[in-house]
């Protein structure tokens, strides 16, 4: 297809694809099989002529192991975790307990999978607190060990038997059909919208139909409900999605599926003018490192509709509030991340830091509450997003 340049790109992509690690969504029997394989390997090494205690190879969830890949088709850039491993060994004193914790969680998950039960992370905490008090004494430890198991087995957290939860809701010009269920028409719903199920298996099998021309991703629930009540999806044929803050996996899977089934629909984000808002936009756009194994698959080409630096003149002075320490911390970490290199977003972030102020979307209500809808329509019509 192309000259040298393209060929190089092709090869690079293929090579990077080979280095890419991801978590699979598996059925219970497949996860059990992976656990059994881990055990067998461990026993095999222990029973060999030169017995050794096997290390646990976990995909490293650190920013050093995170890379960015640019998709060949389309404009999706996403985080992925490479194959750099973190080896946890029983022989090293400072990680010995971590080693044992991983095995304890493996044991518990195996039992749960055998019984076909699902648990919440809190319930997991109590079970581990009760059965292995020497190794677990806080929820944070349990959560970390769960992520270690995800890195070890390369399967999604949901596949391990952890109950999925989702904060996402959707409303607008979309018809959703689950297997053997009635079709849900998201344009007939009240402002709370339709809850997006946390069950990733179900989500992957939804059938969608739509006559929308845009997909709006809204940071906050209050704005989502306002736009839903004003029926903005009738002024601009569109679908609205929110995760009420930082997006959970289920909402991102949902959005990703929409983007695959309706590839011509631009996905536009409406977030507050503050570092957290930009961070949320980036999570939808690139994925996150903490859940790097599950995240890369659900990156979408989300564009920034607002609020941006050129919208600040629309907002009265009193709605501009000083940024707090936490905001500056988030800004600093975004600035130093590789995510935003060579990106227009970096200029916007710089303007944000220099201005030192944050503005919520609700500030636009100073012009009346219909103003928000008009603002969005104007920007969309002028293709004012990137």
């Amino acid at each position, binding site marked *: 297809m192309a000259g040298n340049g393209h060929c190089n790109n092709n090869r690079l992509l293929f090579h990077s694809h080979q280095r890419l690690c991801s978590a699979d969504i598996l059925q219970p029997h497949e996860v059990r099989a992976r656990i059994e394989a881990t055990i067998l390997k461990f026993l095999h090494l222990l029973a060999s002529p030169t017995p050794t205690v096997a290390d646990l190879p976990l995909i490293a969830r650190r920013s050093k192991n995170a890379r960015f890949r640019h998709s060949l088709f389309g404009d999706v850039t996403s985080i992925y975790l490479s194959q750099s491993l973190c080896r946890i060994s029983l022989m090293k004193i400072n990680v010995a307990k971590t080693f044992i914790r991983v095995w304890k969680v493996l044991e518990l998950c195996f039992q*749960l999978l055998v*019984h076909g*039960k*699902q*648990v*919440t992370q*809190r*319930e997991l*905490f*109590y*079970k581990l*607190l*009760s059965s292995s*008090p020497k190794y677990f004494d806080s929820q944070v430890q349990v959560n970390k060990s769960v992520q270690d198991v995800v890195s070890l087995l390369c399967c999604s957290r949901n596949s391990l038997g952890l*109950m999925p*939860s989702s904060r996402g*809701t959707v409303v607008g010009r979309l018809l959703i059909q689950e297997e053997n*269920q009635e079709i849900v028409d998201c344009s*007939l*719903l*009240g*402002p*709370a*919208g339709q*809850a997006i199920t946390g069950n990733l298996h179900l989500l992957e099998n939804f059938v969608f139909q739509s006559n929308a021309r845009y997909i709006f991703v809204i940071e906050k*629930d*209050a704005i*989502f*409900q*306002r736009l839903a*009540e004003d029926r903005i999806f009738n002024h601009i044929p569109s679908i609205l999605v929110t995760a009420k803050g930082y997006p959970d996996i289920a909402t991102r899977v949902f959005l990703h599926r929409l983007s695959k089934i309706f590839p011509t629909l631009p996905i536009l984000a409406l977030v507050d003018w503050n570092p957290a808002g930009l961070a949320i936009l980036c999570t939808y756009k690139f994925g996150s490192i903490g859940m790097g194994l599950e995240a890369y698959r659900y990156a979408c080409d989300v564009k920034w509709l607002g609020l941006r630096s050129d919208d600040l003149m629309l907002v*009265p002075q*009193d*709605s501009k*509030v000083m940024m707090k320490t936490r905001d500056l911390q988030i800004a600093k970490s975004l600035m130093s991340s590789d995510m935003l290199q060579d990106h227009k977003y970096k200029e916007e972030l710089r303007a944000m830091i220099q201005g030192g102020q944050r503005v*919520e979307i*609700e*500030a*636009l*209500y*100073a012009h*009346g*509450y219909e103003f928000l809808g008009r603002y969005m329509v104007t920007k969309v019509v002028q293709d004012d997003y990137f």
Partner: protein
Amino acid sequence: MGGRSEASTNPSHLLQRIRGFTLVLIEDLCKGRTSLVSIDRYRTHCKLIGPGDKCSCNSDMTDGREIISMEKESHANRLDVLLRVLLITQKLLLEGKHASKRDIYYMHPSIFIADQANVDRAISDTCILLHCSRHNLNVVSAGKGLVMGCLRFKESNRMFNCIRRPSVAYPVPVYVEEVKHIMGFARYILVVEKETVFQRLANDKFCEMNRCIVITGRGYPDVPTRRFLRLLIDELSLPVYCLVDCDPFGFDILLTYRFGSMQMAYDAKLLRIPEIRWLGIFSSDAEAIGLPRRCLLPLTHRDKKKAEALLQRCYLHQQVPHWRLEIEKMLQREVKFEIEALSVFSISMLSEEHLPAKIQEGRHL
């Protein structure tokens, strides 16, 4: 609250009252009279000074009045905010639009002096002056609650057939006045504090197995959840049970359902649920199942302060003294106990054994 009927809270009546109120103010100003605005005070509870103290919190009487005068400088700002809010609600009613408290704040942030609390108070004052509830002013909040189970109802034009999929969560409707045709095939209603417990019950198909309705406010219940619950009870006349963690914040949530919140004290009569029965969990449940001591988490300093504050509330001494004993027991032992701890021996212990047995045997407070 004196002569409140359904008819008198419809938009045209409220608009009339707004005009009437403003007219009186203007007349006073024109004639050089001091304008006084009298706002009734309401409370759901008070702090008892001694164990023998009595109070009138239970009687739905007002707790005196506040007089706001245009002559006092400190009151002038409060009146200014009140008038602005009246103007905004008038617009909302005329246009048939809804807004949240936060939306209203943002319409004039300079006047409201960067303080949401000023707006909240003005909204309460407006409700008291106009003898109506907050939703009558078209001030609503984003709905938070979830419901599932053997229930069917209609909201505006949409049919919610929860009974078809009794383990699926539906959002609690925000415009509760639009809810009609409620039909329940349930034996009781169970209110749970946390979303995770709601999920656990959904996962274990609790509503199907026990023919009931489960509702959660996901923490402190918002007004739509409490209104919806009140509506269900009024329409279906079912027993209602409440399941919270054995910790001070769980108790506070139980008390909010039972007696209402101070912030919405003027509307407590419509929002509170005197019929609610406290199903647990209790410290005696931990002993009954032989829960290991380490699963009982220690009370933090904040927990203790909260529990002590709760114990001073008058209704815990006058109306529900048996509830007070449970809180005192918890303070004494200095441990708290979460519902999830019951999963230690068996994941489904809560839904398959604990709850059905308790309800069957009537072991509630």
